[in-house]
Structures are given as structure tokens and as C-alpha cells.
């Protein structure tokens, strides 16, 4: 295999492997939303407050997934 083919291969493999990190973000978002829905079920009056905090928490864990996405997009389209 010449070096050019190897580079292309490594590029696509790397982009794929980078997306593994989104597993963590998915679990995190699931936990956050699950907890928020339970809390809303127990105390419907506090739903708006819980929802705000839930969206913030989801944004934090989503950021990690987005980092992975950005890494793999950079591998695909920039390098």
C-alpha cells in the first residue's frame, strides 16, 4: 500500500473512530432527560424550572458529542 492510499484509509478510519465518543454524550443526555422527566412526574409544578436546567445539562453533554463530530468533520473535509 502506498502512502497516499494509507493516508486516505487512515483519514476515513479516524473519522469513524472519532464518532465513538458520541456514545458517552448519548448516555449523558439520556440520563439527564430521564432524571428530568422523573422529576417532572413527581413535581409537575416545577416543570419549567426543571426543563431549563435539563436543557442546560443536555447542552453540556451534547458539547462533548459535538467535539467528536467536529473532529471527524475536520478529518473528512479539511485534512
Amino acid at each position, binding site marked *: 500500500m502506498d502512502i497516499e492510499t494509507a493516508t486516505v484509509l487512515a483519514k476515513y478510519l479516524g473519522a469513524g473512530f472519532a464518532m465513538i465518543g458520541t456514545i458517552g454524550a448519548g448516555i449523558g443526555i439520556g440520563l439527564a432527560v430521564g432524571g428530568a422527566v422523573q422529576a417532572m412526574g413527581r413535581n409537575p409544578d416545577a416543570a419549567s*424550572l426543571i426543563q*431549563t436546567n435539563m*436543557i*442546560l445539562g443536555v*447542552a453540556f453533554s*451534547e*458539547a462533548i458529542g*459535538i*467535539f467528536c*463530530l*467536529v473532529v471527524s*468533520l*475536520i478529518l473528512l*473535509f*479539511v485534512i
Partner: protein
Amino acid sequence: MNAIARLIRWAVIVGLFVFLCGILPRLFPTILPTVSVEAEPVLCLGGDLAHHCEGGFAVTNSLVATLIVDVALIAIFLIISRSPRLVPGRLQNFFEAFIEILYGQAEQVAGKNAARIFPVGATIFLFVFFANYMELLPGVESVGYVHHAEGDVQGYELDPSTPEGSFLVFLNPRCPVITQDAYDRLTPAAQQARAEAGCREPIHEAAEGEGESEVDRGWTVVPTVRTASTDINVTLALALMVFISTQVYGAINHIPHDRKGVAGVLTGIKRYANKFFNTGGLKKPGPAKIFGAIDWFASLLEGLGEFVRIVSFTFRLFGNIFAGTVLIFVVMSLVPYVGPVATLLLETFVGLIQAYVFMMLAFVFMNAAAQVHGEHGEAGH
């Protein structure tokens, strides 16, 4: 009877699917959009546009979008605030309710300090919201000027119906420029279709060492307007704005009430900087020094966290909206006719959520920076 109805329903669904994915794109092929992470220059002040605008000021397509959003926002709010009435009209009522919702969010985070942090967050929300929604407008990222395709970009031939030297040109989706190898791999029917559409002969790859410019790879479109949030410079600028206003607001809130003028400002900055470089505990005698050292290390981490936020802000917005455009492009190349509608619907949601999250995080961070604690802390917030 029921079984026949079910059969007909499934036949319709499958038929529609085949029609949308197979027959319609075959009859009326579409141009595949190109994905470009960096914004491309559409205008070059004091440079040569053909050579990536070296030495000049490049007006990129995302800058055009940013200016459009700015002008639209300023115009809307000038029109509304020109003649505010006690009993609001339709437009005024709509935007008053809009601003009230935003203010409610600020109050939820900051309580009575909401009025001071509201302008920064609300401005960011309005800008990001409008910038994200530009993605949904037809013509954005699809209308632009044509130039020669380079590198791996798929080029197309110009539409034969365009007259020579015309201002408005179309690409010919039936004639993508392909290499001889790719042409040989096509089915005979596809080769026949190319011949009927009047496409040129397939190009020959330039051999090693030969000039690439000699091969005509066809034409591609550089969009005149591109969604502002898909340019990392725009999101970085917003993140830096939030960062700077957070620090300034934090320092202002640490000014003691009994000190005025320059001395007060200096004290405020000093007390605020103590949050990130807390050496107070290191001077304590005996074993308390250990806890002082831990405090010092924790404050350093807090300072680092401020800078990590810039990265997180930048990539969150950029990644979400850019991934959205890539998703739209992918669906466009798979199901070009009805498929993108579903993606656009998803993007409507994502655009709103990202603007909201950007605003809320700005509120939360600014409010956190304003919290005064320690021995000199004022009571009650």
C-alpha cells in the same frame, strides 16, 4: 377487504418511495452540493479573487450572511421602536412578547440582576436565531457564482441553453465531469444518457508532474450567502464576546460599595482575580497551608475553565449547525425531492434550541461570575 386495503396502502408507500428515490432523480437529476468547512470569498477588496484572495480583504459568504442578519435585525427593531404605542399593534405585540419571554429566562437565572445581563444574552439569542434560520431559506448555499472546480470537488458542465457571456448561468446536472476510469465503470444505459444529453468526452487524469490546470474539471458553485453559524470565525467571535463581557461584569460586581472611582475599579479587579489566583490560603500557618494549596489549585482550574468555555461555546454552535447543513446535503444526494423537508424541520428545532442554549449559558456564566464570596462578600443575592 381489509387485507386488500392494506396491500394497496403498502403498494402506494413503496411506489412513492421508488418514485421519489429512483425515478424522479433519474428523470430530473440534481446538482450534488459540495461541503466546504471554510467560508469561501465572494468578493475581494484589493486582491485577486481567482487566487484565493491573497493579500486582499476577503469578503466571505458567511460575512455576507452576517451583514444581512445585522441589517435585518436593526431594521426590524428600528421600525418597531420608532413609534411604540401604549396599545401595541400586531408587530409590536409580537416582539414585545418575544422579548418578555427572553427577559423571563434572564430573571429565572439572575433574579433582580437580570436587567444588567439581559442585553448581551438577548442580542446573542436574536443574532444566532436569525443566523441559524437563514439556513432554511431557499437560495442560501445554492445560489452563487460559478468557478472552475479544483481538487476532489465534483465539477459540472454548463447548461447548453445558457448564452455565451450571460450573467445568469446554470450547471447541467446531466453532465458531471468524470474521468475515463469512472466513465468505463458506468452502465451502457448511463453512457447512452450522457451521449444523449450532449456531454463532453470524459477527461483524462493528468499524469504525475504535469500541470493540473491543463485539465478542465468543469464548473462548481461558490454560494454567495452561507449560513453565518457554519463559519467557525462567527461562533468564535460570539464566544469571545461572552467571555469578555463575563469577565467585565464579574469585575464590576466585585467593586465594594464604599469605594468609588479608579481605586474602586482596581479593588474590584483584584477581588475578581482572586477567584482565579487564590493565594490567600498559602499564607496561613501550619497544616491549614495544605488546604490553602488545594484552594489555590482549584482556583487555577477555575481560571482554566473560563478558557475552555470559549472552545465549548465555539464548537457547540458551529458543530450543530454545520452538521445540520451536512445532513441536509447528504439527504439531498439520497432523496433529492421530498427528503430534505424532514431534515429542514429538524433544523428548525435545532436552530432554536442552539440559540436558546447559547443565551442561557451566557446568562448562567455571567451570573456565576458576579457571585461574590469570601470574607469580604456582601450578603444576599
